[in-house]
């Protein structure tokens, strides 16, 4: 074993790439949960995004068009969820699970002919001047467009939730839908929009996985990433910046684990592969033990059905 084979700057750069799908999907879910809806179907929306993005990417030869298709596919699937829980008043937990089961099935069905094909390349954009800085440049400023977009999204979503009227309305709907309704806000419409946004973000996250991160289509390739994104939202205490940090810590564990496997460290591969999942559990425990208390920041109406009684 030779630890010096691991280049630190490259490691950080690859952990950012590994974390990007999580950042995107978790940011989407953050907005959904802020509006008071718990969508456990992130895994299903991600895998639909992964397969749709990959197919369109391969057929058109453009990873960017693929990425857009991924967003649309995720949004489309989330509409199904929105309809079932908002119009048909179904249980959110069960409907989210149904979305995941359904999404995994549809994706396997659609992706079957595309197994083993390579995806079109996505070009990296080196930011002029600052990408030349040794070490730091390699780490942060030589990425593809989606990575930069994910970072900008963190900022935008923070600004939206904390500095904009629209964000405040979304939060009020999530805190107490009855009060928001009596103030004249359209609870169902707002939640519809939030869920669709969450679906699109999860879709892009999935698309990034199949078009850039892996880049290939394999059945069940999300391997729990959607669930980890859900855990990240809890871990972050519903805060965008902490979510980003959480995702990068998590990506770091994944990348470190893969690097250790690659250089043939004397630990069983199965044990290393467990690490990300165990780390998620540990993170959830730590955050609920700490003085921040896991549920502080959780929207008051999270997971509850809204019935208009007039």
């Amino acid at each position: 074993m030779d630890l010096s084979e691991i280049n630190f700057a490259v490691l950080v750069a690859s952990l950012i790439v590994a974390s990007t799908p999580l950042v995107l999907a978790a940011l989407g879910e953050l907005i959904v949960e802020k509006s008071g809806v718990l969508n456990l179907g992130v895994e299903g929306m991600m895998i639909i995004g992964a397969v749709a993005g990959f197919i369109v990417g391969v057929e058109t030869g453009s990873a960017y068009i693929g990425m857009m298709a991924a967003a649309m596919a995720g949004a489309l699937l989330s509409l199904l969820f929105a309809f079932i829980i908002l119009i048909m008043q179904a249980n959110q937990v069960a409907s989210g699970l149904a979305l995941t089961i359904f999404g995994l099935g549809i994706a396997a069905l659609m992706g079957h002919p595309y197994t083993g094909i390579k995806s079109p390349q996505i070009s990296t954009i080196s930011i002029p001047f600052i990408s030349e800085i040794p070490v730091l440049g390699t780490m942060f400023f030589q990425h593809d467009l989606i990575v930069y977009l994910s970072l900008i999204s963190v900022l935008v979503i923070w600004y939206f939730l904390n500095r904009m009227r629209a964000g405040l309305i979304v939060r009020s709907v999530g805190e107490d839908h009855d009060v928001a309704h009596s103030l004249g806000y359209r609870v169902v419409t707002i939640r519809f929009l939030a869920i669709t946004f969450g679906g699109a973000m999860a879709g892009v996250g999935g698309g990034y996985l199949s078009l850039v991160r892996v880049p290939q289509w394999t059945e069940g390739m999300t391997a729990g990433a959607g669930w980890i994104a859900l855990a990240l939202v809890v871990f972050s205490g519903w805060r965008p910046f902490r979510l980003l940090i959480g995702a990068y810590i998590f990506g770091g564990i994944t990348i470190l684990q893969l690097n250790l496997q690659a250089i043939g460290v004397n630990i069983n591969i199965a044990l290393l592969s467990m690490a990300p999942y165990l780390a998620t559990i540990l993170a959830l425990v730590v955050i609920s033990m700490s003085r921040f208390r896991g549920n502080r920041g959780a929207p008051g109406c999270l997971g509850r059905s809204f019935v208009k009684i007039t």
Partner: protein
Amino acid sequence: MFKLIPRENVSPVLSLLGPLFSVGLTMIVGGILFYFLGVDPFAAIKMIFWDPLMSETFSTYSIPQIFIKGAPLILIALGLSVGFKANVWNIGAEGQYIMGAIFGASFALSLYPLESIVIFPAMILIGVIGGCLWSMIPAFLKVKFQVNEILVSLMLVYVAEQILALASLGFLRNPDGAGFPGSRNLNQYTSASNAEIIAGTGIHLGVLLSLLMVIFFYVLLFRHSLGFKIKLLGNSPKASGFSGDNPNKLIFLCLTLSGSLAGLAGIMEVAGPAGQINIDFNVGYGFTAIIVAFLGRLNPIGIFFAGIVMALTYVGGELTQFMLNLPAAAIQVFQGMLLFFLLSFDLFVHYKIKLKGNK
């Protein structure tokens, strides 16, 4: 537009109609899907729902298979349903199923080739304990630290899958297996084999146990105060506290039941139909059982029928795969769709719908 009026009492007719309606709708929408996949929809639907039961060529093999595939589904779903009633969401039954199998098989294989009559019951017990221990992790974390049991139980599925890989490639690998992954075949180890109880059908003890458990859970939920306490915790946690119940104890109970039953299903499967621990041992029964629990309306008798219907889609699905070349994932889509329709139909069970404006 329409307006929803909550029903004072859940309509029992509609509550029963829901699953039937959902299965019907799934057949129609599924048929459309099959059409787009280039498969004759009528032939496919007939092959999934009719041929396994009625066709002379298939039914002698298929009918026992329905019970064999239904047994783990029913066992797991029964356990899960108790938790779902109490708002305790164990969705990691797949992991508990795997751990039950690994625990039980490890015990039995460690004694190989010793033959004794006590090995079989001890192996089952250890399998149950294995599943239960795995579900105690989310239970403990939920009670002690208020950690969300959905996420923890699910993460533990992926951990269990890695332990399964570890077992089949490492500590349980058959020493006489020429280096291939997978443990010794328990069916060739008389003391640990979950042999068939009706010759030539493959029906094993697990099938019998699944039927007994249906009765046990029926009594537990409807003839025992525990059933009421569980429902109370789910419907009104506050009232549950006032009536002097300890919600933490009930959370432990729910996860003990679901973990143990998933473990039981796992050990029955590995010692019976599967025969050995291998990397592809788990096929998603733990997740399908969630659908079974809902399709059966969280009612033991309902779960029995739901388990049979779902097993039918598995057996019929294999038939269509074999005869019509329908992809295996189509059945998963089918099952997801079924759950969607079912959950949506709940609207009519819980609310009356009135059109606005036309009095």
